[in-house]
């Protein structure tokens, strides 16, 4: 008898709550995910695919879905991992790959045969030129993703570290500190 009573009361509750939830899930359905936008905004938009996704946006979507880790984007660096961790409240993890200095691609003018293959490869249209014409890379637009390197049949593209000039010179982190300073863990430290 007791059992039946218990079941009856609980079942009553279940029906009410279940109905309410089911109803609400349709009535209050929301589309889209603002989180993806936020994650995408942090990614460097290099579109290099080193994260294993076909671009920054897909990677952002994967992170938002919880499928991808936050430490897969080498161009974003530790900095990016840190900001993703802050946004998502996850633990900071060391980057999967090593951080590289910023680079740009340079096409050797004298070797280029104008095959246009690099144009197709460059995700951000940083290469100009047309068929049979020498191609050139607009340094300001090149994100240094290296995607144009493999397709070039004559290997006329190489990467160069952007040199320090007065325009991009930055004040360095104070060096007089004797005491090793704690900052957010850098890749090699956290490893």
């Amino acid at each position: 008898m007791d059992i039946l009573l218990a079941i009856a009361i609980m079942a009553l509750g279940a029906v009410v709550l279940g109905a309410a939830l089911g109803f609400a899930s349709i009535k209050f359905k929301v589309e889209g995910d603002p989180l993806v936008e936020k994650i995408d905004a942090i990614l460097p938009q290099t579109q290099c695919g080193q994260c294993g996704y076909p671009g920054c946006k897909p990677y952002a979507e994967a992170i938002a879905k919880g499928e991808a880790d936050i430490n897969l984007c080498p161009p974003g660096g530790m900095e990016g991992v840190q900001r993703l961790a802050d946004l998502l409240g996850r633990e900071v993890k060391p980057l999967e790959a090593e951080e590289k200095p910023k680079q740009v691609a340079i096409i050797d003018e004298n070797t280029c045969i104008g095959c246009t293959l690099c144009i197709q490869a460059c995700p951000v249209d940083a290469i100009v030129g047309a068929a049979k014409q020498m191609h050139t890379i607009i340094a300001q637009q090149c994100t240094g993703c290296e995607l144009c390197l493999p397709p070039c049949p004559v290997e006329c593209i190489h990467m160069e570290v952007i040199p320090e000039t007065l325009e991009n010179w930055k004040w360095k982190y104070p060096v007089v500190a004797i005491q090793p300073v704690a900052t957010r863990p850098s890749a090699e430290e956290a490893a």
Partner: protein
Amino acid sequence: MLAKLFKFYGGVKPPSNKTLSNQQPIRPAPLPSRLVVPLHQSIGGTPRPLVQAGDPVLKGQKIGEADGWISAAVHAPTSGTVVEVAMHVRPHVSGLESLCVVIEPDGKDEWIAHGPADRAAMSPADICQFLQEHGIVGLGGAGFPTHGKLKATPGVPMAELIINAAECEPYITCDDLLMRERADDIVRGTAVFRDMLQPTRVIIGIEDNKPEAIAAMQKAVEAQGEAFAVVPVPTLYPAGGAKQLIRVLTGKEVPGAMRSTADMGVQVFNVGTAYAAWRAIGHGEPLISRIVTLTGNVRSAGNVEALIGTPMDELLKLAEPNPDTDGIIMGGPMMGFLVPNEHAPIVKTSNCLIAHSERLFPPKAPEMPCIRCGACARACPHELQPFELYWHARAKDFGKTQQYHIFDCIECGCCSFVCPSRIPLVQYFRFAKSEIWAREKEKKAADEAKQRFEFKQFREEREKAEKAEKLAKAAAAQAAKKAAEAAAASDAPATEQPAEAAADPAEAAKKAAIAAAMARAKAQREAAQPKNTDELTPEQAKAMAEIEARRQQAGIVPEPADALPATTEAKPE
């Protein structure tokens, strides 16, 4: 005299050490063996070189053309020959190089033709242009082109014109000496600024540790019958900071975010700037020399009038540095920097060279952690919380530093001066600021990259669609044609592939068909081959044209690059 002075928060009183160098009159510096004149000497665009290696130049001849409105011309400091226009080290903390005109003086110091401006015939805009052409920039430190400051903000009446003669940094006495010796020209220059800005009041603020300069200025003002107020202000570093001086003299506080003090109806010029402006207006002399204090670990400290471009080590020799000198500080001990390369030339903003030695400036004890004692906050004239800024800058949490107003910091160094833990606070702030700027740049680049990426994706989609359409069309056309051919040569056995039917009797028809197919194929290939030469910006087009030209020269491309699209011809600006 003004009745009331105001106070600014904070500030420090480092030992001033000015008597070291203000005992002797200004000496002219001898002509150096070589002058290295950097083109970039003021805030804003880098002037474009007007001379080439081998060109002879005269003293005062323009060698760099102002690039844009915020920029000022650069002139040859003496007559001679241009040895090269090349990268040379600049007086900059980075020790990096920038484009300089190197001149070998011929010793004649021969002036180019010059003369006073005809002010009566000139509109304010003309005067501005005149000053720009004569390379007048602020000599108080930042080097902002002076003509850019000679306009009141629309809608804000210009209340005060302030001549900054505070010279609050220890050691420096160049403004002091300038006022003692050339007060008349300063007052005349001030009058020029007054005429341009039409302020209600003109105030010349001088720190009260320079009684001779105050007297000289007062005399000059009276002599010229001007109504300028010469106001002694209490000696307290950094009273010479524009915002602090404005606060002391007028009680106004210029918010850090405000771009120009003119928005508050005040404009500030350094005395040296006023002097240089008068030399230009009254005599037609461009800014090619300045007063430089040589002091520190030297035997005969004093001020010299030196040509822009004089190598620092050569200049400092005039003051006979002691043998234990181990570096040169350009600027004052509070805000200046140890120049990484002592051969670097002096520039328009080099007001002081201090011979550095460990005796004079003992090496800093190692940095200790901040104990949050708050001394820095009590010293900060901008009422910031330097230890909070430091805490977050150290942890590279730049968002937080901005929350604590890092961009209101004027890098005066008061906080570092008082810190018992000897933390190089300013250094941390500069680091944070430049990281933030770099980051903003990167962000912008990322946004642009994203846009271009999305556009490319869109374009590829479109091209794919177009190609598919074309193929479909072509296939249909071919089918139709085949049908027609089959009908035309109904006697001949129908062949699937024209190429295989080599022995076909209808040779002519076939040849035509093959040609047509090849043309189609070519068209297809071309359609499929992406071009990236639409929608180029003028610079890109220019760069491409240049490269193409080089390639042609090198004989890589047989025919002229007529394939370049029309946009190439777009005028560069």
